[in-house]
């Protein structure tokens, strides 16, 4: 069970706006967040992960208090270990596919399975610049899943994929998420693509 309630001041260019978001999600659910650009969707994900701090708020994840500003509780991103898929993938240019996954986890069986799910067997020892855009995106998602996080945050994770690949990938990952009971929060400009599997939708507007 995830309970989030935060208030953060956003600076968009010269303007300052307020980001106020309340979200509750069951364990193993999938929430899709959509809304106009600049409204603060990415910021919201970063706040959950602990990469940014809101002025005020609470975040409770599966009975663990990650953030409680009134009681001065603020776990570091390392302590929270939320899986995060960045818009620009954030793949490390100097590590091969296998090395990226190994950086996140020691579980070699899981690494092999991840490589298979991502269909990256032929590229396991290649560096990211060798991979296509779609392969890089798959790797980014797999890396975020590598240490089996209880909460997975994804910032427009399917934007580089064609429709068929996207559908197949989402289906594959859904199996995984069900298996691990991962709670997923996805920011997407096209909420329709997840309509079939999303448990709830959240709109963050300007």
């Amino acid at each position: 069970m995830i309970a989030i309630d935060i208030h953060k001041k956003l600076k968009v260019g010269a303007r300052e706006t307020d980001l106020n978001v309340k979200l509750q999600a069951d364990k193993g659910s999938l929430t899709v967040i959509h809304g106009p650009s600049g409204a603060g969707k990415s910021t919201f994900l970063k706040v959950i992960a602990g990469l940014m701090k809101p002025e005020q708020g609470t975040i409770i994840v599966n009975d663990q208090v990650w953030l409680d500003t009134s009681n001065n509780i603020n776990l570091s991103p390392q302590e929270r270990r939320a899986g995060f898929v960045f818009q620009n993938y954030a793949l490390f240019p100097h590590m091969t596919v296998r090395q990226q996954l190994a950086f996140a986890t020691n579980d070699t069986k899981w690494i092999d399975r991840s490589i298979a799910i991502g269909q990256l067997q032929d590229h396991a020892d290649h560096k990211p610049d060798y991979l296509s855009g779609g392969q890089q995106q798959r790797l980014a998602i797999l890396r975020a899943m590598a240490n089996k996080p209880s909460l997975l945050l994804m910032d427009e994770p399917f934007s580089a994929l064609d429709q068929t690949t996207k559908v197949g990938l989402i289906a594959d990952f859904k199996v995984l998420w069900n298996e691990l009971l991962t709670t997923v929060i996805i920011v997407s400009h096209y909420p329709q693509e997840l309509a079939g599997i999303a448990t709830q939708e959240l709109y963050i507007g300007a």
Partner: protein
Amino acid sequence: MDWSPIWLSVKLASITTLLLLLIGLPLAYWLSKGRSVIRLVLEALITMPLVLPPSVLGFYLLLAFSPQHGVGKWLHDTFNIQLVFSFPGLILASVIYSLPFMVGPIKSALQQLPASWAQASYTMGKSEQETFLKVLLPNIRSSVFTAMVMTFAHTIGEFGVVLMIGGNIPGQTKVASIAIYDAVEGMDYGTANNYSLLLFAFTFVIVTTAFIFNRNKAKSPLE
């Protein structure tokens, strides 16, 4: 020909470069993290040796480490170390003098890395230190290398500071640049020529090798 000035210069430049690597990496990392007032002031201080005349730096070091008062006196009375007219003193002076050459390129390189890389690493449970060593540092290797080469070359050419606080002691502080100056003052142009050519050739080979080695991602020091 007396090789000791050349050897002294190489020794001084090598030790200074290694020390600055140890000092400069954490310093550059901390500076790259934000733009607070403290950071800006510190960065300005670090850049001072670039714009100050070397003799000014040398003069203030002379006064600061005089064994008659303050830090210099304490060092002398407690440890019998003197930082003026000694090789360790030259190392300290060189570290200060060449600091911007090591910190500058590394800090710029770190700032150019996407913030999301470090952030991704943190969400995987990696500490700042581990992130710096395993994610950031491997991706700024060529800048670090360039910084080391520039630091080395800059220290080899150091003159004004050494003239002030070296004391021109043969075998200890009479580095190549001072030996050349000495030879010219004494009209021994043959010796001056020999040392100059040697230094030039040595530094040229090092810098050229470094740039060739770095060819794919080499950055000209003027960038």
